[in-house]
């Protein structure tokens, strides 16, 4: 039952991905300008014959549906084409960049959920208290601050005023031959500012959401039951209430994932984080269409996977859904 659900869900996800591929393929072919000229420009200028050979090389002179077919069938075999700019398989480029992005996004997600939910729960205890007010204000502020600006402000702060965190990159090059532990710590050290910057927006949203969700749950009968049993306040808040309040949070966490990737794009650009977002940004500036397509494909795939995971964990977290369907 669950397996068939999972298979159906995955099948649907694949269908969505196919749609993404086709849409983007056509969108990008709409682009003005001849990619061959772009490639030639990047090489430092070119002659007509060179342009012709570039077109030949990249299959740009084939009919558009042939190009689409080549692209889609290529994806089925894991081949996303070659980057115009780097002259390398797009899958390889993305393979190098996807892990930093996943690391950043997941860390930010964990940070924002854990801190945000904690704040929300504390605020929900006294809905009219000072703490609750602070959380509300903080949530509105967090939502309103442009993420790239937060990043820049943090760079100004940490670059010169209190230089305790690195403000760019993911790794210290001079530690590239160091041991695993040192390397891991080094990456964690570099991760602090970008992850925190990205987390702030969502942290605020989770705080607000979990406050509202907790307030609703705390007013429910089963919380009174738990209290009547003699459960302690901590147990009431974090065991009885949070388990239930977590359900809407989980839904939102799944929906937020796409936004988180968008945010990561800006954060990666600000902090020179070597992820997919920056690859996308650079590729757009270079009109490196195969790479843009590839990044969109992978980013969408990440959202699809995140949605599937959310669905499954939702079913796991809410027993009422478990044996239905």
């Amino acid at each position, binding site marked *: 039952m669950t397996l068939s659900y999972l298979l159906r869900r995955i099948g649907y996800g694949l269908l969505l991905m196919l749609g993404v591929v086709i849409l983007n393929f056509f969108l990008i072919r709409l682009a003005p300008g001849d990619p061959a000229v772009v490639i030639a420009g990047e090489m430092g200028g070119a002659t007509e014959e060179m342009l012709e050979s570039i077109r030949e090389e990249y299959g740009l002179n084939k009919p558009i549906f042939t190009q689409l077919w080549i692209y889609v069938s290529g994806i089925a075999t894991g081949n996303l084409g070659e980057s115009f700019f780097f002259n390398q398989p797009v899958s390889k480029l993305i393979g190098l960049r996807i892990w930093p992005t996943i690391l950043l996004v997941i860390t930010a997600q964990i940070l924002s959920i854990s801190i945000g939910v904690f704040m929300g729960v504390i605020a929900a205890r*006294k809905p*009219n208290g000072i703490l609750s007010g602070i959380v509300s204000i903080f949530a509105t502020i967090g939502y309103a601050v442009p993420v790239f600006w937060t990043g820049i402000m943090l760079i100004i702060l940490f670059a010169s005023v209190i230089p305790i965190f690195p403000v760019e990159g993911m790794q210290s090059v001079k530690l590239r031959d160091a041991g695993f532990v040192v390397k891991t710590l080094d990456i964690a050290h570099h991760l602090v500012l970008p992850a925190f910057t990205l987390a702030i927006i969502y942290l605020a949203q989770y705080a607000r959401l979990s406050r509202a969700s907790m307030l609703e749950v705390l007013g*429910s*009968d*089963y919380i*009174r*039951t*738990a*209290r*009547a*049993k*003699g*459960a*302690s*306040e901590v147990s009431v808040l974090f065991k*009885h209430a949070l*388990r*239930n309040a977590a359900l809407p949070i989980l839904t939102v966490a799944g929906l937020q994932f796409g936004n988180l990737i968008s945010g990561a794009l800006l954060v990666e650009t600000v902090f020179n984080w070597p992820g997919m977002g920056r690859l996308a940004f650079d590729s757009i500036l270079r009109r490196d269409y195969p790479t843009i397509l590839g990044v969109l494909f992978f980013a969408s795939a990440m959202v699809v996977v995140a949605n599937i995971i959310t669905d499954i964990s939702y079913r796991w*977290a*809410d*027993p*009422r859904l478990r*044996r239905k369907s």
Partner: protein
Amino acid sequence: MSPLLEINDLAVTFATRHGEVTALDSVSLHVNEGETLGIVGESGCGKSITALSVMGLIPQPHGRIRAGSIKLAGEEFVGATPARLRQMRGAEAAMIFQEPMTSLNPVFTVGDQIAEAITLHQNTSRDRAFKDAIALLDRVGIPEPDKRARDYPHQLSGGMRQRMMIAMAVSCRPKLLIADEPTTALDVTVQAQIFDLLNEIQRDFGAAILLITHDMGAIAEMADRVSVMYAGRVIETATADQVLDTPQHPYARGLIDCIPALGKSETGLKEIPGVVPPLHMLGAGCAFAQRCDHAQARCLREKPKLINHGHHPAACHGVEEARL
């Protein structure tokens, strides 16, 4: 012998956007060991607030106990520390709520929820507590208890859920069991089963029961003594037989007329006209005066006191003046 539960002059107020309103006004009642006291009244009359006051669960931060005393087994609980209250809850007094569906946590299994009640007050392992929970489920008449213990509340029927609530409430053998409209959400045949179960439990465990209901029928079936409440006050109190046979207060009489009796058709059922006035709109006089056929000038001016006017205590000027 002093009563198990003794409430004296209890006053509870709530802060609302209409200002501070009095939810309970000098409520006094007592429950003796092993007996069943029924509190009866329409919704909004203060029955549930009385029960929650005993449990120390008046909704925070709006509600507060203004005055009075609540003694359980001789110990004063008004002003007790939160820790002491927590210790008492579930162990010395336990509560059964009216909506078994919403009163059970949907994300934990039945067995876990009962086991939690046990581990909160007894020094046992989780496994042990879970086994005890299964035994309790068996005791309250749930078939296949070891299987049901692993179910979630939504997988049980309404009656089963209420049985489970009862199992959870008695898991620590409390001396006082508060049942807040335990059968309202259930259909009639199941209601009778639950009352039977409560009676059995009382017999076996020797617990006193504080039964809260709006249904005089339930009182007739369960209660030894009755306190009738209206608008935050006790307006009549006596043994169940006395109240049922010779109700003094016009409101109590009205309630009794509502009992569906065998042979009476549904349409013949009487209703008390009007509604309970909102608490913030109570005037100086008798709260029932607006709905009372016998109300007169004095009733609008002066609150009647709960005094024995011959038969048993009732708060009514009409009874006092023997016009009824």
